[in-house]
């Protein structure tokens, strides 16, 4: 089993499950020696794709290539791929040691060799003190480490993790993410992370593929997806707090074109033709500021509006203020400190029009405020 780290190519992969298409001709190239995040809302086909790459399922049509070798019909063993499942899938009747050793036992290695490699991996994942315990006695974080150790021990060249953090509580998640980052850098193995949590995409920001309804919507690194989302679903999903969307119409005002919205009129110097009459403006909560203290420097393109506080939601050390401006959904504003306000108060909020995102009515991304304002 020669040790090489292939780049994975998925060509026109389609998969049906009980009648409906869950993967619609997926074409993806996953670079080797990288931590690749496949991000998407639940039931967007991520797990199905993961199982096909792992070899647990075969696609209805399409091919999978490792470098240029067609592995479409090979099993997980022949592909030397291993997978960490959402519920860890540890064998309840075996101790942690035997769980990790199980793939090696299948390879009929010497008892001594197995013992050495298991202890080595357990040491690396800081789990060696729990090897004699059964899975039922381990904590969430420990179970996760044993599952990863089992995937690592047989020297798999590709490890697929399906929603690895969803079962861990908040505080443990932070450590496990740092752990996974360190693991990928040290061992250099290909890691594919299937996740529905945007925070994962933010932490592992180099390679992200956004998936929805069985299709790959956009591929790129975090800044590309964050600054130039392909459509509303990407813009809405990437980001700590969901982006605000404000419908807008272009109207004529004393012979100058103006963007008319619920929160006021925006005078833009030039309105490119590509903007039809009806468009959708997107503004991220972290780009809106409340009160006067931190008004951004180049004041030229500042837009201010007023809103009535619906609720000031404290998240960790920040606060999301929900301002009711007469739209169906309140405008979310991120305040980086603890900022308690009772419902009903009227507040002034400002943002720089360069930070705006413009979408057409069907949700396709057109351009950024910065592109227009120069």
């Amino acid at each position, binding site marked *: 089993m020669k040790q090489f780290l292939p780049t994975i190519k998925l060509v026109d992969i389609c998969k049906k499950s009980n009648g409906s298409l869950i993967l619609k001709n997926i074409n993806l190239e996953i670079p080797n020696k990288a931590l690749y995040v496949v991000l998407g809302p639940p039931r967007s086909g991520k797990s199905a794709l993961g199982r096909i790459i792992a070899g647990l399922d075969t696609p209805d049509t399409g091919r999978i290539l490792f470098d240029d070798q067609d592995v479409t019909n090979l099993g997980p063993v022949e592909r030397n791929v291993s997978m960490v499942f959402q519920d860890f899938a540890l064998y309840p009747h075996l101790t942690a040691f035997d769980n990790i050793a199980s793939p090696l036992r299948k390879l009929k290695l010497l008892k001594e060799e197995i013992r050495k490699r298991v202890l080595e991996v357990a040491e690396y994942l800081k789990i060696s003190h729990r090897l004699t315990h059964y899975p039922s006695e381990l904590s969430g974080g420990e179970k996760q480490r044993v599952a990863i150790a089992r995937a690592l021990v047989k020297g798999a060249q590709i490890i697929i993790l399906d929603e690895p953090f969803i079962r861990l509580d*908040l*505080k443990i998640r*932070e450590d496990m*993410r*740092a752990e996974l*980052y*360190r693991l990928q850098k040290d061992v250099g193995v290909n890691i594919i992370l299937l996740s529905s949590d945007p925070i994962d995409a*933010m*932490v592992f*920001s180099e390679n992200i593929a956004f998936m929805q309804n069985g299709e790959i919507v956009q591929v790129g690194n*975090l800044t590309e997806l*964050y600054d130039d989302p392909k459509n509303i679903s990407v813009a809405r999903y990437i*980001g*700590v707090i969901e982006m605000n969307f404000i419908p807008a119409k272009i109207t004529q005002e004393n012979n100058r074109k103006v963007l008319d919205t619920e929160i006021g009129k925006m005078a833009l110097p030039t309105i490119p033709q590509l903007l039809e009459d009806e468009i959708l403006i997107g503004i*991220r909560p*972290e*780009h809106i500021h409340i009160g006067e203290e931190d008004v951004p420097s180049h004041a030229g393109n500042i837009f201010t509006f007023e809103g009535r506080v*619906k*609720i*000031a*939601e*404290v*998240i*960790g*050390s920040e606060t999301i203020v*929900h301002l009711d401006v007469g739209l169906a959904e309140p405008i979310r504003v*991120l305040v*980086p*400190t*603890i900022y*308690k306000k*009772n*419902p009903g108060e009227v507040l002034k909020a400002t943002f720089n029009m360069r930070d705006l995102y413009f979408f057409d009515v069907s949700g396709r991304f057109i351009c950024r405020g910065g592109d227009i304002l120069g």
Partner: protein
Amino acid sequence: MDDSYVEVVTSLVSIFLDKITKIFKKGKTSIIAVKDVTLEIPEKTFVGLLGPSGCGKTTTLRIIAGLEKPSSGRVYFGDVDVTDWDASKRNVAMVFQFPALYPTLSVYDNIAIPLRASKVSEQDIRRQVLEVSEFLGIKDYLNEKASKLDINLRQKVAIAKVMVRDPSVFILDEPLTVVEPKARLELRAKLKEIQLKLGKSMIYVSHDQSEVMTLSDKIAVMNNGEVLQYDTPENLYNKPRNTFVGWFIGNPGMNFIDCELTEESGRVYLTTAEGFKYDVSFLPNIYDIASSYRKVIFGIRPEHIALSSRGVRVKCLHIERFGSMMILHVEAYGRKIRAKVPQTSQVKVGDEIYIDFNKEKIMLFDPETGKAII
């Protein structure tokens, strides 16, 4: 049970727990769920009980509601000792974690049933039920069977059941954990409005700090059955009384470094064996603290650390980018700490950078008791 009891209770509003202790006996082992808790819940306030699971917050809540008898200590509604009254006599309205609705009854009957138990005329009942369901947006589900509704609607009905009654106090045991994120935000706003509108005190138990920080006027942080600190959200964040509160409140929690206080040529420094050194002479009465404490725990929140040209030299291990903010995992002389700073592209993994601490936000804790010194 004549109605005089009930009248007495509804007019009372403040609740006082006097040295409450609860011990559960499981076979031979006995677990101290609540240890010597004294708590004053003034009227018309929204009080949160916050802490990790198993810290005794739910048991305390159930003792207030009368669903659990304390092993020792007294419970007062106003100045009436209600310790021996069972739940039905205390006229308490409670929302459970899982919506406790009568499955075969319609939504209308589920809401009306408590009123029918206390001899209210049918028109009055109809008027109140319509008013409440209007407010909670469940008006057009009134004739639906409770078991047919989805979990969000069922919890709204459970809240409606509580609102129609005129209870002595509202009690909520993690009501929003089962609700989906979208509906959770709306319900948080509604709960705050209910508390303000009906002018009754509300006791809210949750392990989710953002929910409790958002809604509560005062919060009791609990751990291992004890109340560690009972204060406003801002004070808990800025002036935690011990290391646990500092760690638990805020996301990510406070950094802690075990240091020594060493005096050197008239200045007081925080030092560690590995060479960390930081001048803290500016701290109030630092000199007599230095005399009484050899070892201290230095606490600083990640968001109170800033990049600077001088200060403490650290190595950057890992970066988590969050749109406008980013979290730097840095190593200061062998100690790992996290800093939350505005997004910049200058800092890269592996760089040697300088950080400085916000002088007013530095805290010192007693290593044995964990209590805050400054």
